[in-house]
């Protein structure tokens, strides 16, 4: 295992991901699945250079990483076009790698059926270059037929390293349409007819107990699926229209986050001065005041700072009037923090967000 000093297993992960995604993004924009288009984008961005400059012993590890990354773009649930792009990317990286001996492309058993399905879909749609490239890879014996896509050594990663698929690349869910397709509807309506005929032949039409199903359920089903499809399309369009709207909401999110960071920072700096043991009880007093000063210190940012622990406890545990005073005056903290009876009253404890 090659590691840098800090124990990083994947030093170029972010950059590789962004490079591959920008390439695939450009490919997606062309709305084509031709290898010619892909190779043009490859040449324009001089992507072969991605291997250059690696020191001798790094070459194999780097090849391994980049091939594993590209492999993830070849599998569902990404859109067909992105998967074709992933295939082209795999092919190009495999041919252009500088590692010697060359690293192979690892295909896991669980993914092989998907690969075959992809090949069939491409062949049916007459995308000969995609099929040719896939066959070429098999001809070149570029695949390692493995159990899992990567080597596993029981490494439990921190959550921040979870790989998430870029949303533009992911195939839209189309399960309702896949399930209720034309053939199924035809069959259903045939069976429905037969059933109706049998029912009328067996019993009188006035008998209500036999009417268990909707008369026109097949057209209804078809109608619902079409509605769903239309709604999906409309949602897409409105999403695009609301880009400006979404822009401001994401701005708000940014300002929320900024406010949160500001409050954390102000708390941290508020407690930074370590009081000596004898006066440590006074440190707690800093909190409420720093909370109040937090928003005022950052006037340009949103006021959505996190309420203090006391405020949150108050929110959760609803004390009624007298109980509130009694509860707050008998706790250890209130005893410690009250300098003298006069000062204690001056310190205001108020809920940041009134409970609803």
């Amino acid at each position, binding site marked *: *295992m090659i590691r840098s000093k800090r124990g990083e297993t994947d030093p170029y992960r972010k950059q590789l991901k962004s490079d591959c995604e920008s390439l695939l993004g450009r490919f997606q924009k062309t709305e084509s699945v031709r290898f010619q288009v892909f190779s043009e984008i490859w040449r324009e961005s001089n992507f072969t250079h991605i291997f250059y*400059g690696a020191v001798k012993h790094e070459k194999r590890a780097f090849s391994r990483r980049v091939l594993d990354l590209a492999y993830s773009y070849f599998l569902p649930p990404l859109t067909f076009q992105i998967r074709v792009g992933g295939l082209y990317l795999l092919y190009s990286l495999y041919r252009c790698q500088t590692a010697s001996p060359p690293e192979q492309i690892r295909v896991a058993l669980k993914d092989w059926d998907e690969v075959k399905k992809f090949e069939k879909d491409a062949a049916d749609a007459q995308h000969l270059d995609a099929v040719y490239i896939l066959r070429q890879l098999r*001809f070149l014996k570029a695949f390692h037929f493995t159990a899992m896509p990567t080597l596993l050594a029981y490494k439990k990663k921190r959550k921040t390293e979870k790989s998430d698929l870029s949303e533009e690349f992911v195939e839209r869910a189309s399960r309702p349409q896949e399930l209720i397709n034309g053939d199924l509807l035809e069959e259903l309506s045939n069976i429905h007819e037969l059933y109706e005929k049998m029912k009328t032949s067996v019993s009188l039409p006035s008998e209500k107990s036999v009417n268990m199903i909707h008369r026109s359920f097949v057209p209804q089903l078809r109608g619902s699926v079409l509605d769903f499809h239309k709604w999906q399309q409309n949602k897409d369009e409105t999403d695009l229209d609301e880009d400006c709207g979404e822009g401001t909401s994401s701005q708000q999110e940014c300002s929320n986050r900024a406010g949160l960071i500001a409050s954390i920072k102000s708390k941290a700096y508020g407690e930074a001065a370590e009081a000596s043991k004898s006066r440590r009880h006074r440190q707690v007093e800093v909190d409420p005041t720093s909370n109040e000063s937090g928003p005022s210190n950052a006037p340009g940012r949103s006021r959505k700072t996190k309420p203090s622990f006391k405020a949150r406890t108050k929110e959760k545990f609803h004390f009624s009037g007298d109980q509130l005073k009694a509860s707050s005056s008998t706790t250890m903290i209130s005893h410690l923090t009250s300098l003298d009876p006069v000062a204690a009253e001056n310190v205001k404890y108020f809920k940041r967000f009134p409970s609803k």
Partner: protein
Amino acid sequence: MAASGGSTTSNTNIPEYEYSDVNTKPFHIGGFRSEWLSRLTPEDYSYQPEEEDTFDANFAKEHGVSAETMAELKSVCSIDSLRCHPEDEQPDPEVVPPNPTLQTLIERKKKQDYKASRKITKNRHDLYANELERLTYGMKPEAVDDILPEGEVILTVNVYYPASYDKFNYVRPHMTLLMTGSHSLAEFRDAICCVSDLQVCGEFSNTPNIAPDFISKDHYKSAFFYFEGVFYNDMRYPECQDISMTTIEWAKSHNFPSYSQAKMEDTRFMDLNVKVGFPYLYCHQGDCEHLVIITDVRLTHKNDCLDKELYPLLTHKHRVATQKCSVCHIFIGRWFTTNDEFAPSHPCLFCDKCFRTLHYNEDGYKLGDFLAYPYVDRGAFN
């Protein structure tokens, strides 16, 4: 295409993640192999390269492609279309190209500049990590019988340091072995080299020459592997005892699920039901325990080392710094002495030559008063 309930039947021979990117659920290695072989054509995993013309002809026939379209396809998809520079103007691949636009290259340049500025000595672990693999890559045997059969399964197993070592026990595997599916666990055991096997217990100042006869490997031959609830014991020699019995009996008395036993020499890797990426145990010498993780299972490939005789193949060995003799500082220490009037420190490490020249005269008689113990350095297998 329609979800007609086919996905509800889970095939236990197809490996799936138990925890994503950490380890898989248990599966049968032999079953896994048959699953792959049933899905592939023999050409996919054969070692012989296919003829390009046959490939083109087959492709054209299968998809009803004319000769011109075929030629066009070939030229479009050839490696020439990926060439970013004309043939005679290729930039040096060993250097990061100037004015990089790709983020990876920018990052690489940054790292290289930083490293150059710090003047760190080269990291030998990284430099030689692939050395063993490079030596055996693509080796083909002379005799045809010794060639690894096509469609054979290769497992990559990491063996880790025993928990008694302070540094690096979780991080770097001690050694990485490539095993084939037809190897037995006993062969695997023989391939694992642990320094505790060479330890000699006892004081040998009076009889230094017979020390090598007493290595622990010969005395304590028992060992076991633990995979998925089964203890595989080594019962090849009459001295071997079943050391897993203690654990099994303890487990029974404490309401653990019951474990079973099997023989190491009768079990091949192909018969095992294991998880990939999950730690298992190898225990020998009674208390020297190593973690064993199977990191990869795959079919053979034409670029692998195809000589059966070379397997189990060591592809990675971690090197440990060794302690040298306190006299010559050249050879690794083999003896250490206590209560030694000749030695500068207590205890003191000597290599074999220095030890004998210092403590024994030409006839082999012991000089002076001391206690000597054979010492096995951790890096003895470097």
